């Protein structure tokens, strides 16, 4: 399997939102999905789930708040439904409702057999959804409490 094929199965949410400011929410999520060879039919449900349906769909990303931008990135991730999710501080910039939503998304992905690798400073939240934890202290990886959350599928993630 070449690098390109592997990347099509990855969903990445980093510190940057990786969005095009001049494109609308809908255009951005559509581009993300089509770039990974996915079906645009999954875009609308993803926008609904992230609270970006209705008028917000057609708003240019440049006019969104930081939290809405983060939701837009997450909508792309959900619409692609990648097999491996790489999340770097996915709760950053979100309000309490948004952070809860991220936890639900991660839990749902885990239950569908997706592998989620999440880096977070919010250990309480990460522990609640992770099936395995690794704590990095002074540059050294240390195993945290095992099986902090019930694993409902074969797949497991590291939080």
């Amino acid at each position: 399997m070449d690098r390109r094929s592997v990347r099509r199965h990855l969903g990445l949410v980093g510190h940057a939102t990786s969005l095009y400011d001049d494109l609308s929410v809908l255009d951005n999520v559509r581009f993300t999905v089509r770039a990974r060879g996915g079906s645009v039919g999954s875009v609308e449900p993803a926008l609904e789930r992230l609270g970006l349906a209705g008028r917000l769909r057609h708003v240019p990303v440049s006019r969104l708040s930081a939290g809405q931008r983060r939701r837009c990135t997450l909508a792309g991730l959900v619409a692609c439904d990648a097999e491996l999710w790489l999340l770097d501080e996915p709760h950053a910039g979100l309000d309490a409702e948004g952070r809860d939503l991220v936890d639900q998304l991660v839990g749902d992905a885990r239950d569908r057999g997706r592998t989620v690798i999440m880096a977070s400073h919010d250990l309480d939240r990460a522990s609640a959804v992770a099936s395995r934890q690794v704590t990095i202290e002074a540059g050294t990886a240390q195993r945290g409490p095992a099986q902090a959350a019930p694993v409902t599928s074969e797949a497991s993630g590291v939080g």
Partner: protein
Amino acid sequence: MWADAGLVAGKDLRIEFRSRVALNQVLPFSFVVLVLFAFALDPDRGILERAAPGLFWVAVLLTSLLATQRSFAVEAADGNRDGLRMSGLDPAGLFLGKAGAVAAQLLLLEALLLVGVSFLYGIALRSFGLLALTCLLATLGLAGAGTVYGAMSFGLRVRETLLPLLVLPVLAPVLLAATRSFEAALGGAPRETFGWLGLLAAFAALYAVVGLFGFGPLLEES
């Protein structure tokens, strides 16, 4: 590859359509360049008319730099470069899409600049077919080379100043050949220009091959 190229070109053109940077900034810049040339050279002595082909292509060259920089600036913002790299898009399709979008914008700008040149410099075109072929081949070369060097300077903090330094010397053959072909179109002597058109075609083909095979590594290393 073609599907990815269409996706990327569509995205880039949609961004330009929405932001109107090409129309509101790049096009006026090109017209200002033409007007400044007209001020700098004395129109009464017929210098402008004789120099019109070269001045037109210098204006197009500067315009192509802005279009290329803009094409990569949208990818440099907000982590889009990593998003693009991780997307799984075919690098050859990415190159074709980005170069195609730049070429489409340049062709439109060239058509408008031609009207400006005709009006400001008082030239009369005799061979539209030859001029159209010259514009097409030169534009493909400009877009291809610009996209290759744009990718080369993509990840650098000094990319805005480095890109002209890298790309302008390389584009000298395009400037020369396109100017000669334009002169032939003005003079109505198309047979004399086959060699120059061949040079433009070879340049465009060379950078198409370099882009198709080299864009992936350039994107990964930038």
